[in-house]
């Protein structure tokens, strides 16, 4: 009964201060869309990056005199290593072709028709083994196998990618944290201002004998509802934007549903806390 009344009052607050409520909701919507979009893009790009560069490939050059059965036995042994995801045989011709792709069509001319490459196995490591030490351990293990001549991997490349990824992550986290912090401040400020614009009402309520709880509750409920509405709108906006981005630039973009949960949770929490703390200032006794 009592609770129902406070809930109704909270909803009535929207009508009573329409501009203020609208602007609160708009602030929440805008801020959360920004946070959501940023997080989504960073998430997507870093996932793509990891997919492209996150799996280390080793070239295992093997004894050119090896026969087919022996080679398959070797492949089997490599495959059994914990770090290995997949093994594939690469003939000398294929290696030459790959070099040609990387260094231009005319490598053959440069090499004057000879194929200097031995047969090799392409070994793809599991995602969890992208760090330099783990790669090196895997290389040692393979190198120790019989009939393996040499294992080659692009150490510099791994270092470079790791470093760029790390910088990118730090920069993105910095920007993201800043956006989040700033958004929180903006939402709190807006709510504070909307409550400030109703300080006469609060003052009168006090004088008529309303308890703090009775004055606070509708404002807090209103804040919570504003947060909810704002975050639902933000979820919608995010969904639309991701659809557009997917259509035009980033074909693989998808939003995990956790995002919507996170947006709504954050919106509700901010609306609730914002109004709870703002109203405190206008209630002395």
């Amino acid at each position, binding site marked *: 009964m009592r609770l129902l009344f406070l809930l109704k009052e909270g909803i009535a607050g929207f009508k009573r201060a329409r501009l203020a409520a609208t602007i609160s909701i708009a602030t929440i919507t805008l801020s959360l869309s920004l946070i959501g979009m940023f997080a989504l893009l960073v998430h997507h790009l870093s996932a793509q990056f990891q997919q492209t560069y996150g799996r280390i490939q080793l070239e295992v050059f093997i004894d050119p005199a090896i026969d087919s059965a022996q080679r398959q036995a070797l492949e089997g042994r490599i495959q059994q290593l914990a770090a290995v995801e997949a093994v594939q045989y690469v003939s000398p011709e294929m290696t030459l072709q790959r070099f040609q792709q990387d260094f231009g069509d005319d490598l053959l001319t440069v090499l004057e028709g000879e194929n200097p490459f031995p047969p090799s196995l392409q070994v793809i490591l599991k995602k969890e083994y992208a760090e330099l030490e783990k790669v090196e351990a895997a290389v040692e293990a393979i190198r120790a196998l019989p009939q393996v001549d040499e294992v080659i991997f692009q150490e510099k490349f791994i270092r470079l990618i790791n470093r760029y990824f790390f910088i990118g992550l730090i920069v993105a986290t910095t920007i993201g944290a800043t956006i989040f912090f700033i958004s929180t401040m903006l939402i709190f400020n807006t709510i504070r201002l909307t409550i400030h614009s109703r300080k006469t*009402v609060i003052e009168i309520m006090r004088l008529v*004998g309303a308890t703090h709880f009775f004055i606070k509750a509708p404002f807090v409920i209103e804040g919570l509802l504003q947060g909810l509405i704002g975050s639902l709108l933000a979820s919608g906006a995010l969904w639309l934007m991701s659809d557009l981005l997917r259509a035009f630039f980033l074909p693989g973009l998808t939003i995990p549903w956790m995002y919507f949960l996170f947006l709504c949770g954050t919106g509700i929490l901010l609306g609730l806390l914002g109004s709870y703390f703002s109203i405190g200032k206008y209630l002395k006794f």
Partner: protein
Amino acid sequence: MIELFNISIQLGKRQVLEQVSLKINKGEFVYLIGQTGSGKTTLLRLIYMDVFPDRGNVIVDSYSSSTILPRHVPFLRRKVGVIFQDFKLLPDRNVYDNIAFALQVIGAPQRTIKSRVLSVLTRVGLHHKRYQMPQRLSGGEQQRVAIARALVNKPFILLADEPTGNLDPQVARDILHLLENINRSGTAILMATHNYDLIRQYPHRTLVLENGNFSREINPEELA
């Protein structure tokens, strides 16, 4: 039931009241007069504990200004009906809701609220304006809403700060009639007013506030 013991209070740089004592008994009707700025509103604010005395003690019912906890002040205020000089109507809700608010605060059930609000609105003659917003009412109509709100939860004392300032003499008399009725049913009334005509027509104990203190209690006939 209401007692002020040697109250002194300063607001801003001004010593508004100095060593004021006062006792109002259950069911009494007391007028408070005095020049503009003499401290009538301040004295009423002390009773509903919107301000606290620098020295001295205010006792209202079982509450004392020197020991009351902040969270108990709302409960004191529910027992005291106040007609504010500047009305203090909630600008964001209509007449009905303004009056209902005083009952919602104490958690009255919806049906009680409805019947009580409508009956008090009829008594002050504003039944037909119950869905209007306060800022669309005339000054006198707003004052009557303020009166209705103060009456609606049947306080044991009614503090009326200039309740007829915006009313024509006929309506003012009606309101005073109403207040006397309420008083007769046991509610004490403390009314600050400038309307000496009214005091002469409805004579009661009359206190004069002067230079921060009660100079005297006067006889209504003495009024200029």
